[in-house]
């Protein structure tokens, strides 16, 4: 921290970073204030907005980035996001008979890995039937996924049934209780207004013994690494967004929302509070990402 402050004094501080600092240092006071007066407010990146507004704004963000989503992911993470997702699927290790709901999985990254995993398993087709419901709040993202699935041949003679569903993770009213046995959400829960409601719904739609798995950006335990990562996020990512996708704001939001998301331990206890047991997490790339896993038992 002290190193960070010194360097900050030396260099002229760009605007986004000033915002970061103020939020970091005064977070305790904001918490107290929020407690009493601003219950209906939430954060959108570092802005404070009405709860309804956040849903709308997040929707707009993904509406604008949907097409360039994959290119940008590759650019920003140097392709490492593919490895994160591969590791995620390895830890998940689906077995034939899995009924998966892939929440916030519009572009199908997790779903396609899931299908591949089951395809590569010997005599998977002969045994029980597996299925996946790709669910996203944003039809634009779902469309990207549908087109890709068609193009890459995931729908033809696949051992897995694929459904597409446009729904809000906080209110899965159309899904009856205990209708899935696995719930994954990769890089999605951060954008939800009420994380606790999402977890609650996840718990509800899972059968006993079902698994909840979440891949999400997290905090780096090492302060030096966190500083480096902050520099990269705030100085470079929005610029890349502007250059490649022609959008500054969505990527500004992206890095800010990552800072707003609870750290590994906090999120773990949130999952436990939703009723999940045997909750564990694993850091990827020094904690840039974390895989959280919990069971409904």
């Amino acid at each position, binding site marked *: 921290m002290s190193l960070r402050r010194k360097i900050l004094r030396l260099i002229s501080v760009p605007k986004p970073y000033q915002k970061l600092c103020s939020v970091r240092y005064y977070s305790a006071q904001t918490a107290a204030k929020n407690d009493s007066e601003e219950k209906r407010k939430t954060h959108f990146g570092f802005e404070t907005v009405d709860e309804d507004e956040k849903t709308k704004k997040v929707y707009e963000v993904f509406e604008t980035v949907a097409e360039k989503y994959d290119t940008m992911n590759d650019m920003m993470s140097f392709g490492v996001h593919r490895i994160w997702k591969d590791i995620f699927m390895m830890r998940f*290790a689906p*077995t034939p008979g899995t*009924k998966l709901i892939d929440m916030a999985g519009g572009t199908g990254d997790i779903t396609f890995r899931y299908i591949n995993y089951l395809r590569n398993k010997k005599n998977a087709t002969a045994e029980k039937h597996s299925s996946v419901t790709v669910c996203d709040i944003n039809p634009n993202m779902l469309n990207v996924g549908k087109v890709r699935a068609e193009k890459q041949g995931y729908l033809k003679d696949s051992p897995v049934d694929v459904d597409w569903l446009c729904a809000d993770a906080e209110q899965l009213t159309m899904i009856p209780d205990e209708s899935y046995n696995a719930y994954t959400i990769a890089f999605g829960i951060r954008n939800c207004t009420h994380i606790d409601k999402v977890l609650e719904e996840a718990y509800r739609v899972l059968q006993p*013994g*079902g698994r909840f798995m979440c891949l999400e950006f997290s905090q780096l335990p090492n302060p030096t690494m966190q500083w480096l990562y902050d520099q990269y996020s705030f100085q470079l990512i929005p610029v890349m967004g502007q250059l490649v996708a022609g959008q500054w704001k969505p990527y500004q939001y992206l890095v800010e929302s990552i800072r707003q998301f*609870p750290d590994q331990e906090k999120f773990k*206890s949130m999952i436990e*509070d939703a009723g999940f047991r045997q909750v564990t997490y694993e850091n990827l790339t020094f904690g840039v990402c974390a895989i959280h896993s919990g*069971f409904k038992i």
Partner: protein
Amino acid sequence: MPLSTVLLSHAQKTLRSYCQGPTNKEISIPTKTTEQEEHQYEENIKKNILAKALDFVQKTGWTIESLAQGAEAAGYPGIAHGLFPNGGGDLVHYFNITCNEKLVEQMKSWPKEELKESKVPAQLIENAIMTRLLMIEPYKSTWPKAMAIQALPNNVPNCLATLLSLVDDICYHTGDRSVDFNWYIRRVGLAGIYKASELFYLTDSSQNNSGTRSFVKSRIRDAELIQIALNVNPVAVAPQTLTAAFVTAKNMLGMNSLK
């Protein structure tokens, strides 16, 4: 971050009661006992799945598939195999633990006459090792793989722990009450004998495993000899040792006069 604190503390109670159902009402009192109960509950479910998974080992080996089938047999979806992040390693570990427990139960009821004599209770030790080895019998064809799994770096600590508890139990129940350096020698020695016998047993096709039995017997005898050698006062045997060394040196130099 601050806002999620608000949400959490606000929603905690309702979430708990909603999610846990009526069976776990005590959960809202955060005492130590409930935490233990929670832990016990999770452990019981895991043990149940592992026990069921053992039935499938003969077919699908010490793998995630067996765990998945075990989970299904216990009434959970196959995906619950994720409860065991070490996969087959956890299954092998569970099997070792249950076998060790079974062995201790049996050994408690064994006659203790041999212990009254002052010599090493070789027969008892041999019986203990054989009993434990024969527990592998149903899984003999898949056991080499289990041994390989145990040798994987992330499973080594568990494997050593179960081995130590096994030899410790055998030593204790065959009358070892030493508190000196012998404590280590006996346990390390016995662990060596057990692991060597295990390897021998895998390729033993003799009737009633008589080959393994005689192997165990001779290894125990070896150990006894070593023990005797170690217990001998080094000063008293110094002349003998020197003579032996001298003779060996002479032999190596080709100066053996006895020829």
